[in-house]
C-alpha cells in the first residue's frame, strides 16, 4: 500500500440542519496510532462511520488503505477492522460462535475458522469464557470480544471508536496494552477515537483534537502540550466580585489566559512563581477559595483552542444537540 493508510480532505457530513463533521483534513501513516480526541458530539464517531463506509460523506473525499470510501467500499471494508462505539454483539451467541460467524462472513476458509477463534479468544483473555453466551459477559469482556472480532481477518487498519468508555481501570489498561502491541509488533495502523485525555496521551503517537466537527489542533501529545507552553496558575477568589482584582494581581506574573471558574495566568518562567503569587495575593489581603498549579495537558490545549475544557464541552454538546440521529440526509 503506497501513501497514507488513512487520508481525508474536506470531509463533511450533514444531518438535516446539523453539520456534524465540517471539513476534516487528516492523514494517518501506516503503523501509526492516531488518537482522535474530542468531547461528546464533536463528530468523532461520525468521522469513523464515514471512514469505515458506514455513512457516505456529504462532501469531501477520504481514502482508506488507498481505496476511495465512496467508490471502492468493498475494498475498504476488506482492509479494515472496526470496533465501534457500541459493542455490537448478539447476547444469545457465545464468544466462540461470534468469532466463527465473523470468520465465515469474512471469507476465511472453513478449516481455519476454529483455529482463528481459539487464537483470538486466547489473545484477548477470553478462552475460559469462550463458550458462554455474551449476555453473561461483563462490559470489559464484551469490549475485548469486540476487539477480537475486529481482528478476525487480520486487517491492516483498525478503527476503535471509544473502546474503553465505561470500563474499569484494569480492563482499560489491558485493552491499551493489546492496542499498543498490535501497532508495535504487527504494524497495524490504529485510528482511535476517545474522550479520555489519558488514553490519547498514553496510546497515540499523534493526536487530532476535534470540536464542533473541525480539527482544532493536531500533533504529537508533546508538541500539543508544548504549544500551550508553560504551567498555568488558576485562582478562584472567595468573593466572586474580586475576580478583577485577582486578575490584576496575578497578571504581574504572566500572561492572562482562559479559566472556567476564576482567573488564570500562564507563568513567565516556572512553578517558582507560584510562591510569589501567594505572597502577592496575601499582601493585597485577597481571600482565595482555590489556587491551583496546572501543568499543560491536552485539556489545556483544548481550552486554549476553544475556550472550553474537554469535560464541560461534552456536557454542553449533549444539551445542544440532543440525540443525534445517524440518519442519512
Amino acid at each position: 500500500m503506497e501513501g497514507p493508510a488513512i487520508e481525508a480532505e474536506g470531509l463533511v457530513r450533514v444531518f438535516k440542519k446539523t453539520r456534524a463533521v465540517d471539513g476534516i483534513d487528516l492523514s494517518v501513516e501506516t503503523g501509526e496510532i492516531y488518537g482522535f480526541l474530542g468531547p461528546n458530539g464533536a463528530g468523532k464517531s461520525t468521522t469513523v462511520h464515514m471512514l469505515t463506509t458506514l455513512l457516505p460523506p456529504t462532501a469531501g473525499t477520504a481514502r482508506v488503505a488507498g481505496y476511495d470510501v465512496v467508490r471502492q467500499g468493498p475494498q475498504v471494508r476488506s482492509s479494515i477492522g472496526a470496533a465501534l462505539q457500541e459493542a455490537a454483539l448478539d447476547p444469545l451467541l457465545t464468544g466462540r460462535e461470534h468469532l466463527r460467524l465473523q470468520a465465515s462472513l469474512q471469507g476465511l476458509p472453513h478449516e481455519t475458522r476454529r483455529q482463528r477463534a481459539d487464537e483470538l479468544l486466547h489473545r484477548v483473555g477470553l478462552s475460559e469464557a469462550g463458550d458462554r453466551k455474551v449476555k453473561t459477559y461483563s462490559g470489559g469482556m464484551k469490549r475485548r470480544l469486540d476487539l477480537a472480532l475486529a481482528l478476525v481477518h487480520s486487517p491492516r487498519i483498525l478503527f476503535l471508536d471509544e473502546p474503553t468508555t465505561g470500563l474499569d481501570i484494569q480492563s482499560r489498561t489491558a485493552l491499551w496494552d493489546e492496542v499498543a502491541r498490535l501497532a508495535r509488533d504487527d504494524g497495524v495502523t490504529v485510528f482511535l477515537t476517545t474522550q479520555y485525555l489519558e488514553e490519547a496521551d498514553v496510546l497515540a503517537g499523534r493526536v487530532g483534537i476535534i470540536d464542533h466537527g473541525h480539527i482544532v489542533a493536531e500533533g504529537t501529545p508533546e508538541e500539543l502540550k508544548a504549544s500551550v507552553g508553560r504551567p498555568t496558575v488558576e485562582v478562584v477568589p472567595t468573593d466572586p466580585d474580586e475576580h478583577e482584582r485577582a486578575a490584576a494581581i496575578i497578571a504581574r506574573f504572566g500572561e492572562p489566559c482562559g479559566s472556567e471558574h476564576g482567573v488564570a495566568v500562564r507563568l513567565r518562567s516556572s512553578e517558582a512563581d507560584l510562591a510569589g503569587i501567594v505572597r502577592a495575593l496575601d499582601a493585597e489581603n485577597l481571600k482565595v477559595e482555590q489556587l491551583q498549579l496546572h501543568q499543560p495537558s491536552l485539556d489545556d490545549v483544548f481550552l486554549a483552542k476553544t475556550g472550553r475544557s474537554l469535560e464541560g464541552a461534552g456536557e454542553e454538546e449533549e444539551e445542544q444537540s440532543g440525540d443525534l440521529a445517524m440518519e442519512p440526509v
Partner: protein
Amino acid sequence: MLARRSVVRTLRQPAAVIAPLVFPMLLLAVNSGGLKSETQLPGFPTSSFFAFALAVPFIQGALFSTMNAGTDLARDIQTGFLNRLTLTPMRRLAVLGGQLGGVVTLGLLQAVVYLTVGLAVGVHFASGPLGVLVLGVFTLVISLAFGALGTLAALRTGSGEAVQGLFPAFFVFLFISSMNIPRNLIQITWFRDAATLNPVSYLIECVRSLIITGWDAEALALGFGIAAAIAVVGLALSSQALKVRMAR
C-alpha cells in the same frame, strides 16, 4: 452461517418458540368448542369444526414469524450488529436471507406441530400425503412472506417496540377474514366484503382446502399467488430499506 445464527438464536429464546406453538392451539381449542354448532349451518363444508379451523394456526403462526423476524432485526439495528454485518463482504440479499432463516425454520416446526395435533385429534387430511408436502411448501412461503414484512418494519423503524406494535394490526386482518366461517356464509355484508378483500382469507382457504376439500385448484392458486406476492413485495421493499440502512 447467518441463517444458522438466526436458527440458533430463535431456538434459544423460549418465548419465541413456545408462544407461536401454544397460543394458536389454545385459540383453536377455544373456538372449536365455542363455534362447533356452525357445522349445522346449511352449506358448511365439513362436519368437523376442528378440521375447518385447523387452517388458522398455520396463518397465525406466520404472524408470529413477522414479530420474531422484525424484533430480531430491530435488536441487531439497535445493538449495532447490523453495522458489523455491513462491514463484511456479504451482499444485501444474503444478509436478509440469513435473518429470515430462523423464522422459516420455526415456521416449518410450527406446521409439524399443528399437523400432528390435528391428526391426533382425528382430522382426516383430504389431500393425503402429497397435500402435506404442499402444505409444508406453503408454510415455508408464508413464513418467508410475513417474515419479510417484519424485517421491513424493523428496517424502516429500527425499533423492536414499533414492530411489536404491528401485532394488533395484523390480528385485525386475521379476525376480519374467513377465519371462523366460510365467506359465502357470512350474513353481514360489510364483514363479508371485507373478508373477500382481505388477502388473509385466501391464505386460510388455501390451507383449509388441503385439509377438508382435497385438491382445489382455485384455492391453491389464490393462496400460493398471494403468499408469493407478499413475499416478493416484502423482500423487495426490505432489500431497499436495507440498502438505505447500510448506506451502500
